[in-house]
């Protein structure tokens, strides 16, 4: 049963130095507030996993929380590059960042395998690309029925998955809708999970396109309205596109970034 606790308590309980942490949300429902709490608590040596390490991981990488990044697309969507990510990869600033790089289809299937309790997933992918040469979690595999060569990707089993959702009820059942990406798979693949929500309600009113995570597969829920800002929560908020544009200038320069980092205020929940 997921208990509902303040965000700071949930992060300090669930996220430890050296953990493998997956924060998912495919341009929608990105758990920014939880990411900021990880920065405030000064977690170090994390392996950060995310299909699209956009602005949220640029912030964690620039703050020095990460030792390793597992990902498939690292850009500022609709704007350009991630400058903190680039600085870490090209110059090792503020700390060197190892990378393990996949395609979206590969990452999605790695979460599926993790959720299904399998050691790997099979897909048609990576063949002929240089990604397969540099990424040890991609290997060819022969189909035992047809003899065809396919691609295997190793399962992802994060220590913690963190996502943002629209609602939870008081028992900690979680409801989300709109673009739900790979969040269900990430939570089911992880040993522990934290879901931040816009709203805690007495009863979850059913929606036709909903994804439900029952309370007993979620470790902790935290009530964090606006916790996806500057991304959006379908039905609650719009994407703050200006922030994504402003991030380009903030993140381009180390000192400018340090000034932004200093503005992270303690959460009240």
């Amino acid at each position, binding site marked *: 049963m997921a208990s509902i606790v303040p965000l700071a308590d949930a992060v300090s309980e669930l996220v430890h130095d050296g953990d493998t942490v997956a924060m998912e949300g*495919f*341009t*929608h429902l990105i758990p920014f507030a939880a990411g900021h709490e990880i920065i405030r608590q000064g977690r170090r040596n994390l392996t950060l996993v995310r*299909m*699209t390490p956009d602005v949220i991981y640029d912030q964690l990488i620039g703050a020095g929380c990460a030792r390793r990044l597992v*990902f*498939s*697309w*690292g*850009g500022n*969507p*609709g704007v350009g*590059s*991630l400058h903190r*990510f*680039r600085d870490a*990869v*090209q110059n090792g600033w503020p700390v060197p960042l190892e990378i393990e*790089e*996949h*395609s*979206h*289809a590969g990452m*999605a*299937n790695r*979460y*599926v395998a993790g959720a299904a309790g399998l050691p790997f997933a099979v*897909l*048609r*992918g*990576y*063949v*002929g*690309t*240089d*990604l397969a040469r*540099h990424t040890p979690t991609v290997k060819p595999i022969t189909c035992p029925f047809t003899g*065809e*060569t396919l691609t295997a990707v190793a399962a992802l089993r994060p220590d913690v998955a963190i996502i943002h959702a629209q609602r939870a009820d008081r028992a900690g059942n979680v409801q989300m809708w*709109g*673009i*739900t*990406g*790979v969040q*269900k*798979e990430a939570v089911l693949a992880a040993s522990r999970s934290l879901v931040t929500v816009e709203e805690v309600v007495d009863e979850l009113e059913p929606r036709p*396109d909903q994804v439900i995570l029952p309370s007993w597969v979620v470790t902790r829920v935290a009530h964090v309205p606006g916790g996806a800002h500057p991304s*959006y929560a*379908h039905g609650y908020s*719009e*994407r703050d*596109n200006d922030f994504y544009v402003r991030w380009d200038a903030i993140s381009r320069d180390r000192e400018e970034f340090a000034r932004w980092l200093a503005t992270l205020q303690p959460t009240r929940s």
Partner: protein
Amino acid sequence: MVGDFTADEIMTVAAARALRDGQTCFVGIGLPSTAANLARATHAPNLVLIYESGTIGAKPDRLPLSIGDGILARTADAVVSVPEVFNYWLQPGRVDVGFLGAAQVDRYGNINTTVVGDDYRRPKVRLPGAGGAPEIAASARRGIIMVRHSRRTLVERVDFVTSVGFGRGPGDRQRLGLSGAGPQMLITDLGILEPDPDTCELTLTHLHPNATLDQVREATGWPLKVAPNLAETPPPTAAELATLRKLERTR
């Protein structure tokens, strides 16, 4: 501005015209998304737009800001998970056209969006990476690539193969077991290149109005071959331009 339209505008119009009504199109953000939405707003109202966020049959009335813009989910026929969009919809060959951008593209249509430089571990420039492109390039029935024409972008050989076009030449896609036909068009702001049927080498088949052959040669990083029946791209119609500019204003 050149003439009555910009180089970007003729590129986008040429790309929109390459899409036919009723096709299914897997769309990347940026230039491809603008072109696909222009096609849907003009000659291809039944074009099925699929974005990798899992929105199938999205019908946005403005340009989406990202591949996961809320307007895509609100207007889609179906919103599915990311594993599903790749495994059930792209992988089995249900997508007619895969529409991609690139940081580098080479004479065989291979795409690099990963690193610039020879050393993957110590890149000169770290680019965003693969995203959905490798499997789109592999499994969509046909590929269309859109880039602005320059020597930095159209290179003899890509520094890193993120997504496979024709590999090193004829027969490579079959050898690798890639189900789609590969890139059938490279559309730039200067012209259109198509693979030579025998050599698979991208060859100039259309020159946009206001562009010159010398200009294209100068901006291409390999000795460019020109099709014997080189054609001029018809200029944008007033309706195409008006619709495109209206879409651009929604950003």
